[in-house]
């Protein structure tokens, strides 16, 4: 157990593979949790905290539709392409966020255009994803700079968002939220009831591609904070947790956002106390929330979530 934690944290912190001596093993706990100097550290990560709140909002809302449209695998695929874009940007010394956005938007549009049916979509993602990851590895291998930058793209870094990047981050987030607000109702219709939505004149295909664009942007934001490998923890887990405990179209998005913000901000605050990357904290908070929701949801189902109210027999009899 301890060696597993150690190797992950050492790897993620960017230590060369050969440096895993006994002295590191002795203090692995303090590397994960060490809350001395906490106050002065918080000031340093103010931007990251703002980014965490905004990412929670975006991830929580987008996640609701990711669940409804069964796009979990697509999110993972897009994040690998986003990683490739960011790695290319790092190599070419252009803005990493720009590279991440380009990579994920291209991936999202390709998946949206080619994969209308679920089976097509999954095979297209299966083809794109390793290619993206391979490209990313290539770009990182060619990149001569610090190793920590490289691993940050995969596993996240706490100070990834500086002041100049924060404004771009906020603009992209605003675009996503505004776009979702505009298409919310017809997108819900097209996601949960596509046949009838098409019959009622809802442009289901255009909405699907529009949503993929917004999803691509959201993934690019998440890659900045939690890294490409763990995007799912903010784009899927909170919404999946929320749907375990409610089926209301109002409560589910609100819970999902609350869970995502808690995971992102909580993860950042916990990560301050250690020297390992931010993502293990974010994913753990997010996972614990999911487990709790699952237990609550199961208890609720056992007690009879699907229970009918008493008028059932009377109403059935009158129409049968």
């Amino acid at each position: 157990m301890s060696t597993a934690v150690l190797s992950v944290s050492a790897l993620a912190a960017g230590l060369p593979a050969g440096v895993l001596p006994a002295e590191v093993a002795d203090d692995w706990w303090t590397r994960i949790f060490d809350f001395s100097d906490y106050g002065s550290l918080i000031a340093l990560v103010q931007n990251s905290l703002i980014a965490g709140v905004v990412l929670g909002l975006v991830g929580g809302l987008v996640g609701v539709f990711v669940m409804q449209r069964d796009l979990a695998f697509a999110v993972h695929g897009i994040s690998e392409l986003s990683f490739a874009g960011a790695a290319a940007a790092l190599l070419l010394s252009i803005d990493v966020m720009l590279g991440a956005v380009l990579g994920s938007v291209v991936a999202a549009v390709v998946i949206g255009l080619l994969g209308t049916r679920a089976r097509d979509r999954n095979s297209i993602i299966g083809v794109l994803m390793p290619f993206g990851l391979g490209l990313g590895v290539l770009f990182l291998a060619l990149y001569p700079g610090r190793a920590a930058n490289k691993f940050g793209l995969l596993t996240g870094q706490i100070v990834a968002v500086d002041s100049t990047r924060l404004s771009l981050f906020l603009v992209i987030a605003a675009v996503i939220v505004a776009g979702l607000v505009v298409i919310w109702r017809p997108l819900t219709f097209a996601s949960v009831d596509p046949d009838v939505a098409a019959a009622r004149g809802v442009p289901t295909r255009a909405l699907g591609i529009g949503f993929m664009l917004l999803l691509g942007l959201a993934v690019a934001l998440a890659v900045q904070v939690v890294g490409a490998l763990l995007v799912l923890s903010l784009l899927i887990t909170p919404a999946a947790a929320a749907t375990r405990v409610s089926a209301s179209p109002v409560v589910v998005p609100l819970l999902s956002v609350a869970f995502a913000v808690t995971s992102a901000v909580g993860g950042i605050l916990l990560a301050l106390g250690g020297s390992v990357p931010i993502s293990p904290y974010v994913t753990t908070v997010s996972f614990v929330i999911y487990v709790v929701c699952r237990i609550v949801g199961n208890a609720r189902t056992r007690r009879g979530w699907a229970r009918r109210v008493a008028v059932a027999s009377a109403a059935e009899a009158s129409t049968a």
Partner: protein
Amino acid sequence: MSVPAAPLELEGARLAYGPRVVWSDVDLTVRPGEFLTVLGPNGSGKTSLLRAILGLTPLSAGRLSIMGAPPRRGSRAVGYIPQQRLIDPATPVRARDLVRLGLDGDRWGLGGGSTRARVDALLAAVGASAYADVPLGMLSGGEQQRVRIAQALGTEPALLLCDEPLLSLDLRHQHEVTALIHAMRRERGTAVVFVTHEINPVLPYTDRVLYLAPAGHAIGVPDEVLTSSQLSALYGTPVDVLRSQGRVVIVGGDDEHVHHVEEADE
């Protein structure tokens, strides 16, 4: 003197995909409150007919009108009930949400305004009030179809399209759903176009049959259309129509009918 517009009117209607003619020269006027059952083997153009009525596929020739106007995508004059399909129990949609989407799901934005009273009234009309707040994926097939009927009636359509709504329902639910659709058209004067593989559940309510077949089509009351000579002519091969205890069994032509009838015969 103005004649009230017909819910559905086809004049010399023809639909072709490239050189392949699906159906042609269809002349049909569906009166308010009429129950038209559309039968035919796979590939005979039943779904294409529904798509044409919904304004999703244009006719190749002829004229089609809904309440006197050309078909239009998203017209509120047309309600649509699809076949029952599997819904993941974790989908965050309750019965009432599905009905509501039928009312305003085609509009942009988050959706404000209160539709609760109307949704409740629609659910009550189909006897689905008891499970209004149950997630859709936790409803039985028959319950889901009840909710879909409420959804389709939300815009007070003049014409209700039913696209194989009985598929994958057991016999009891087939009868419940057809009886409910019949009751709704009586109560509201909604014309019904009911596409199905299985004639027997809808036979008691059917006013006229439109039979689409490889060698042409026939329109008329069930006793006129569902005869051995008529169907043999439509299929271009010998077809026997047998009647037994109020049920119709079609043998030959399209094997699927035999299959489905056997299946329905408990």
